[in-house]
């Protein structure tokens, strides 16, 4: 280390790092230590890349992900609005394999044997691990919206996992009759991307204002309040006056039954004939987390310092699936958590230096063309959870130049995070 004396004495962070002395590692399965990562999304791809990159071949990294192209949920609303092409959202795993030496296996994990420390794949193969990273994203809570289950997702798409669902919703939006009705059933907390449904409403409204200006949007919402509410409502008033109606819980927005065959939505007894119904059900950790036995209720609780499961110190749970405290379920958060976990895994398996965890998040949303807003916070681990240490949010009434700059920044972020995930 090249500290001068003053710098060294003044560095509390370094002092803490020195205390976190690496444990000695003994590979459970012989050979190089092995890390298996389940899920190649914001958390998993980042973790695989950082572990492989920073360990310089000292750790075997296998990434299990069924799809060959990952379509981001982030910016998928901009695709609905017409600001992005579908292809802009797709990213392949080629560079992770070729440049970082990650063993990318396109398969589905179906079992985890925590005693034997193995993962079983749908193909029947079994993979040993010393550390397992679970970043499977979300699944939906059965029965959370009366009348809807995943078999109805073609009639009433959720478009809340990336890929074909997003395309389907876009096609339905484009096929809406003149003056038609778009209904969104918004999810209860906690769910992935707190501003996501409202950015989606904004982008749908943008599309309709350009192509079908007499159409209407109705949101049935079980929540009193939502993320960036003041900013969205100001924007809706400004850009889409009269188009959007939100029915909150006071007016029965939480009492919804859908009929996918009839294409109707019953909101507290009032039946609406809809042309497009976007049902975003309640969420839980991706199924494999429950299969691995690391969930408590809907989510997988983790230790705030290194994202290890509270049920198993050899498993790290990242991203949306984890219950960690104050961080929102976002791609940015998952990416941030992945780097902390990667550092801690390397420390445990190769004895590399471990520094104190720092986390952060910023979520940008687009309300209309060049009208971008953002919200963000920094976080640190406490005994009990990952706790927010400071935050900011865009203000209502900001001038157009600032909003445009904020949008430009979100473009930069998208380019940055996807490069950080996939190399």
């Amino acid at each position, binding site marked *: 280390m*090249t500290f001068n004396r003053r*710098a060294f004495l003044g560095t509390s962070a370094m002092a803490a790092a020195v205390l976190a002395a690496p444990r000695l590692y003994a590979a459970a399965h012989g050979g190089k230590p092995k890390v298996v990562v389940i899920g190649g999304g914001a958390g998993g791809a980042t973790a695989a890349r950082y572990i492989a990159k920073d360990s310089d071949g000292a750790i075997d990294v296998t990434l299990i992900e069924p799809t060959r192209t990952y379509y981001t949920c982030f910016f998928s609303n901009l695709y609905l609005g017409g600001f992005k092409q579908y292809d802009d959202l797709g990213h392949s795993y080629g560079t992770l394999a070729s440049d970082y030496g990650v063993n990318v296996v396109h398969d589905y994990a179906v079992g985890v044997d925590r005693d034997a420390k193995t993962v079983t794949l749908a193909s029947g193969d079994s993979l040993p691990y010393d550390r397992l990273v679970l970043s499977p994203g979300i699944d939906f809570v059965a029965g959370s919206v009366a009348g809807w289950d995943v078999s109805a997702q073609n009639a009433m798409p959720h478009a809340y996992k990336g890929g074909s669902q997003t395309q389907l919703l876009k096609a339905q939006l484009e096929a809406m009759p003149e003056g038609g009705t778009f209904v969104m059933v918004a999810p209860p907390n906690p769910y992935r991307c707190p501003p996501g449904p409202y950015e989606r409403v904004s982008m749908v409204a943008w599309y309709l204002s350009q192509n079908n200006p007499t159409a209407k949007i109705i949101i049935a919402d079980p929540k009193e309040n939502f993320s960036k509410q003041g900013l969205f409502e100001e924007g809706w008033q400004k850009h889409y006056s009269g188009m959007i109606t939100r029915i909150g819980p006071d007016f029965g927005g939480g009492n919804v039954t859908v009929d996918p065959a009839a294409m109707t939505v019953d909101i507290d007894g009032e039946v609406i004939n809809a042309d497009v119904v976007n049902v975003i059900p309640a969420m839980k950790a991706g199924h494999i987390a429950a299969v691995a036995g690391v969930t408590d209720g809907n989510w997988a609780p983790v230790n705030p310092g290194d994202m290890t499961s509270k049920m198993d110190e050899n498993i790290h749970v990242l991203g949306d699936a984890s219950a960690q405290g104050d961080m929102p379920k976002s791609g940015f958060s998952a990416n941030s958590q992945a780097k902390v976990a990667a550092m801690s895994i390397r420390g445990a398996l190769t004895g590399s230096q471990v*520094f104190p965890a*720092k986390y952060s998040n910023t979520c940008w949303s687009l309300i209309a063309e060049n009208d971008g807003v953002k919200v963000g916070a920094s976080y640190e681990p406490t005994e009990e959870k990952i706790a927010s240490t400071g935050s900011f949010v865009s203000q209502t009434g900001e001038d157009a130049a600032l909003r445009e700059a904020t949008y*430009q920044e979100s473009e930069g972020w998208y380019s*940055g995070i996807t*490069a950080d995930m996939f190399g």
Partner: protein
Amino acid sequence: MTLLARFSLVAVVACLAQVATAAEEIGDAERGEALFRQCQSCHQIGPDATNRVGPHLNGVFGRTAGSVEGFRYSKAFERAGSKGLEWHIDTLGSFLENPKAIVPGTRMSYRGMADAQDRADLIAYMRDFSASPANIPESDPTARAVSHDLDPAILEIQGDPAYGEYLASECQTCHRVDGQDSGIPSIIAWPEDDFVIAMHAYKTKAREHPVMNMMAGRLSNEEIAALAAYFATLE
């Protein structure tokens, strides 16, 4: 604008862009302040400046022509801006010399300032009301002032690049390590001092940006030095 005029605008700007002038030599800002009196009937500059007959002139350096929020520009100015005219020391100099040659059709009724020294002094004065490279290294590089108010002891700290590499992973969610800029600036291969000065400007909120204020705000002096050391090594 006629085709010919449009062509000449592009041509003039293209030539001007090749003239680079060193910062410290812009001119005598005190003389410039006196000269600015001729501008004052239309333009304000300084802490409370607002748009009047002409747009306010705070932050003009590095700005696209015709882009001050809330000011109604002539068509000519809007077009000049959309064609890429930006205000730097060179373009401002030419514009002040002969406004109608640079933006034909501008509403600004000013014949022009013939004397080169006068123009330089006036620009030196105006330069003080734009972002300065002293605390914002990537601001318009026309006036790279040598002074900044950061404690020299802070600049002396030798950062640990290994620690910097871990801390940098947080920056890389947005700032690409290959230096590509799609809306968020490159931060690789900066001189370490510039990096440290910029981060402290964010930390103390001398420079405002909510994300960067938050990120820099929780970094210690040593952590900033570590980041500067690490990013300086990237190419």
